[in-house]
């Protein structure tokens, strides 16, 4: 359940999609375009993706979430294209029998995504546009 797309996520449909027999919760994460970055105003953002590799990396992280935390199902939507402040960039939904596993898996998913999924942001502010420097891989 990996979706790399321009369109906004259909959160209700995806939340239903991840529910399984025995599900006790669905934890969701929504990442949105912030109006500031390192003290500067941000008005717009461009997101680029190396789709083939991103899909593989996201599939790997999804499998790791299931193996490490025993969650039932994991879905992610990561968008690319042009965005404005407040737009939703990322939606993650994780179902599990109990909340702790789902919260831990959700934190793991977004942390790993920020380390190893080939997606880049370019922010637009009053001084121009700037590529966001990603965190160094450990």
């Amino acid at each position: 359940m990996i979706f790399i797309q321009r369109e906004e996520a259909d959160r209700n449909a995806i939340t239903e999609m991840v529910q399984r027999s025995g599900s006790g919760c669905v934890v969701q994460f929504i990442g949105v375009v912030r109006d500031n970055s390192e003290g500067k105003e941000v008005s717009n953002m461009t997101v680029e993706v190396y789709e083939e590799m991103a899909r593989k990396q996201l599939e790997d992280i999804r499998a790791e979430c299931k193996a490490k935390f025993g969650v039932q199902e994991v879905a992610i939507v990561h968008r690319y294209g042009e965005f404005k402040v407040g737009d939703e960039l990322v939606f993650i939904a994780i179902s599990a029998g109990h909340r702790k596993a789902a919260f831990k898996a959700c934190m793991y998913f977004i942390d790993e995504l920020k380390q190893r999924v080939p997606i880049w942001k370019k922010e637009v502010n009053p001084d121009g546009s700037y590529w966001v420097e990603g965190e160094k891989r450990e």
Partner: protein
Amino acid sequence: MKIKVTYYGQFRDITGLKEEEIEAKDGVTVVELRDQVRDKYAKIAAKEEVLVAINNSFTSLETVVKKDDKVAFFPPVSGG
């Protein structure tokens, strides 16, 4: 041999290219190919970290690059 490399993110702006062919010796390793790209583009050389993926995976710097491998160069990722 010629190896096709693809650039992503800021590296497309730096190189002005989506992809190009680089002449490399047979048996070239990832780290050697990375050094060739750094030598060619000063703004890539100036980056603290240059990531290389082979066939959609991160790989050891000592991996030998084969002619038909899918080689990608890009800066640290910033999605999410």
